[in-house]
């Protein structure tokens, strides 16, 4: 059982970690499925994905659930602590959005692509 302050130690999350936790919010997934969903928020390759997953496993936000038959696909799920952290980070971001709106910052339906 994590203490009330334990999940706060992990905040704020990096965009990559937030995207991975969010991808796992609706159930367990394997690495490639996590990457495909996380890419809706942030550019991510296998190195960033598995490096982040390794850190999330070490800090107990994510747990491994098992292998596929050929043992080349591991499945991951959010832990209870991971759920808490994701909820707290989402709340934090929602408060930021609320503050931005109160200052007249418009929320676009689509993020404009940056020019390179």
């Amino acid at each position, binding site marked *: 059982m994590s203490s009330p302050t334990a999940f706060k130690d992990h905040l704020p999350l*990096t965009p990559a*970690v937030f995207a991975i936790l969010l991808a796992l919010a609706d159930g367990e997934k394997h690495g490639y499925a996590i*990457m495909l969903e996380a890419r809706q928020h942030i*550019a991510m*390759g296998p*190195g*960033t994905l598995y*490096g982040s997953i390794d*850190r999330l496993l070490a*800090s107990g936000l994510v747990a491994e659930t098992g292998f596929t038959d050929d043992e080349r696909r591991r499945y991951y799920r959010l832990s209870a602590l991971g759920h808490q952290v994701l909820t707290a980070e989402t709340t934090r971001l929602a408060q930021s959005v609320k503050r931005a709106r109160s200052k007249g910052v418009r929320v676009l339906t689509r993020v404009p692509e940056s020019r390179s």
Partner: protein
Amino acid sequence: MNTPTQPRLRLYALALHLYPSAFRARYADEMLSTARLEYARSSHPLRFTAPLAADTLRSLLREHLRAAKPASPSYVAAFALFFSFLLIGVSVVSQQFLRHRADGMPRFIAGLYSTPMDEKSEPYRKQLVAHDLTGPKHEISSPTFLNNDNPNSDQIFAILYDAAGHALTGNATLHGALPQPPSGIFNEIRSGDIDEVTWRPEPGIRLALSGHPMPNGGFVVTGQSLAPSEARTARLNSILRWMWLFAMLACCFLALFARRNTRSPTV
């Protein structure tokens, strides 16, 4: 790990060997499998290769930093001590080197005066002609002379002395008179104990002198201002001080990083 047939994937499989061994053992198969799926899905080879290469480089650096054992504070302190002594050594050696280099040209000119001209020294006659002792004289105390950093013989003065050490002629003056170094210098030049010496005729003037006995029993003393050489030493010491400061800041950072790493893992 099955070796892929596609050259880009084969290259990626090789790059996976660059990850720390524990990370590679745990994730290499999954990473390669993910890259395979990604390759099959990509519309253009470059759209697959460029982001994958960038991601691999970034994550390689990150994973090696994670895998690196935090530096022990005692190792950091030992390095700081070693680096400090190293920089002190570099400073002392370079100061000596620059000081001795300032003797080179005066020694050369004094050698030309004190030895008879032969075929070998003929090419250097121009150097002596440039040192016409009856021509215009350098005023040693002038800033123009003191700070002359021209890397040729223009900055060298030469004075001839008799056997008793009295100035006879020369192409430099000190406050209007021929410079007169302490008489002890001539005794030492005659006995062969020294041929180079630093002379400080007054505050703010430091000269590198080179003296040679002449066949007629007199002496030739050549010299130049040490101000340019000392300015170079000061510039080098300033760079070394900044290097030391950055190194000490880096050591403090490493020591703090080590303490932080031993306390709590971060996501």
